[in-house]
């Protein structure tokens, strides 16, 4: 039989699509390194990356290597984490509206970080792994609460899922506000900046922890991707096809909470990335999670780097919180998805 394989068609060239996404990501990194209060042209960027100083004490080298590149790397990893978290939550709740911020999981993570601060674990010499752990615990606590509240007869209707996400999110946000007032005023400004979503250059250790968590989350999601696809048929049918549905859900749940926690502890609350990026990836590649996991990682990184570039430059010299940009993109999309049939189906 020489008939063409029935599985691919228009999505057949997806490895090429991934290459394109990687190219977009690279261009995004390059742009974000070049553009700023001091313009740096590509040749200077290349020189700076190679550590060649045109003149002794070349400021371009410092700007690229100490400020802009770490910032781009941070933004990229945070974006990838949030996009993967959204993808994971969407697959297990069988709904494209799930997102760590919408589900209140981000607020839970912020709550965890504030607890760490109150315990004095978040000072300038703090271990970023410890803070990430607290954020992870907070995220997991919020996610478990939301899913427990939203469950009706073993199902997750989208209305109760969104409502309980809003409620849990509000609750943890209130806790965050309460604890913020308890903090010493010396710490206050940093906390407020962080709460608004802050991609200020992070230390090497923060980047290392974030990178490690991102790698773990990516591998876990990639390994569960085929099972997550079958979950789209419903839990009982996934079981009947040989997927340990409960285990897959639990693993993805924990992984999504983990990457959310890492992103929040590194950069504060940045909303809607987990909603926008998987949606865009689905439009480009279809709903197969085996393609979406790498695509969401690449697109999430590119998206937040570019959003940060816009936030830094659009009102220069004032720098907007990057969460403003992502929300301005995400909120309309959320409304569109909610009104269209895709998000309206209760499952």
């Amino acid at each position, binding site marked *: 039989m020489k*008939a063409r394989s029935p*599985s691919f068609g228009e999505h057949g060239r997806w490895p090429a699509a991934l290459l394109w996404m990687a190219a977009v990501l690279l261009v995004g990194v390059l742009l974000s390194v070049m553009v700023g209060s001091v313009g740096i042209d590509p040749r200077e960027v290349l020189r700076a990356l190679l550590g060649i100083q045109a003149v002794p004490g070349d400021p371009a080298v410092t700007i690229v290597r100490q400020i802009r590149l770490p910032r781009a790397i941070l933004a990229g990893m945070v974006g990838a984490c949030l996009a993967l978290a959204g993808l994971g939550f969407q697959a297990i709740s069988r709904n*494209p509206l799930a997102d760590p911020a919408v589900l209140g999981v981000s607020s839970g993570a912020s709550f965890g970080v504030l607890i760490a601060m109150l315990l004095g674990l978040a000072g300038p010499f703090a271990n970023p792994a410890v803070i990430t752990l607290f954020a992870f615990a907070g995220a997991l606590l919020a996610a478990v609460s939301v899913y427990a509240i939203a469950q009706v007869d073993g199902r997750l209707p989208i209305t109760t899922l969104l409502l309980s996400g809003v409620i849990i999110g509000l609750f943890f946000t209130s806790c965050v506000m309460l604890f913020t007032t308890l903090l010493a005023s010396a710490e206050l400004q940093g906390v407020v900046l962080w709460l608004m979503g802050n991609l200020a250059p992070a230390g090497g250790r923060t980047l290392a922890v974030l990178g490690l968590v991102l790698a773990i989350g990516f591998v876990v999601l990639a390994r569960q991707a085929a099972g997550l696809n079958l979950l*789209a*048929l419903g839990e009982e049918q996934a079981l*009947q*096809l*040989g997927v340990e549905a409960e285990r897959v859900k639990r693993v993805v749940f924990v992984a999504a909470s983990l990457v959310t926690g890492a992103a929040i502890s590194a950069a504060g609350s940045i909303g809607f990335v987990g909603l926008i990026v998987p949606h865009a990836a*689905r439009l480009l590649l*279809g709903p197969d999670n085996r393609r979406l996991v790498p695509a969401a990682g690449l697109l999430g990184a590119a998206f937040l780097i570019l959003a940060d570039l816009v936030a830094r430059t659009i009102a220069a010299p004032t720098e907007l919180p990057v969460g403003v940009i992502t929300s301005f993109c995400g909120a309309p999309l959320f409304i569109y998805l909610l009104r269209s049939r895709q998000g309206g189906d209760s499952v």
Partner: protein
Amino acid sequence: MNALELQGVTFRYRTGKGVEDVTFRAGPAELLGIVGPNSAGKSTLLRLLSKVVTPQRGRILINGRDTAGLSRVSLAQRVAVVPQEFHVAFPFRVAEVVLMGRYPHGAGGGWGSARDHAVAQAVMEATGILDLAMRRMDELSGGERQLVSVARALAQEPAVLLLDEPTAHLDLRHEQRVLEFLLTHHRKQMGTTILVSHDLNLAAEHCDRVLLLARGRIAALGRPEEVMTTAHLESAYGCSVEVERHPVSGRPRVQGSLSRQVASDTVSHHSPDVREAGCPNGQLGN
């Protein structure tokens, strides 16, 4: 060889619903119908057979092997289910959904071997949905969706095919198309088919044997004309029925009768809504 065998299978939910001491066999190329009123245990039996729940007592054997000792994946290589409703959460394409049926045969996460694709292609051709292969699931009609569901189940190449009201949401034409296909195809493959249905006439017309469940137990098991008797059905459903012969096939044909109530019936004769108390045409206890 008995493809499917249940030995004294008992499963009770905490609510008390379930099945009690169910024993039967179904052979290769046999089509066994399971009928009975609401909450008689039909769905529980299906969930037991597909190991969504496991027996509290008794054993379920497939080709002589106890399913308790089979992993979920190896069970899925032997048993496939066509559910009542087939809803896919994200806009997957038809071919992708059919290929999901190959999951238990793959390495679990692979993209599908050449054989997987060949099987998917063959079942789509057989079910007449090959031209829908690249369509998105959310663009299909209910009948087309159900055919995809059937193709997805057949892609598993199961020894036992479980059908849960496979035609409940279909119009007459699509019902016939789905049924005709299921009957001829699965028998050709010498598989065992279990058809769970509310529709007594559908079961009587097509099944080799019929199992009547009532209150979680087997009330009758045998050829349709042995099971579909006034006595069996009235005691199982608690309402009066009439059984005739189909003019062409000679199979039993069942009608709920509104004219007289069973003496022991708890329903009052003065009930203002007689239709609710009696049984509508053929679909006893909807």
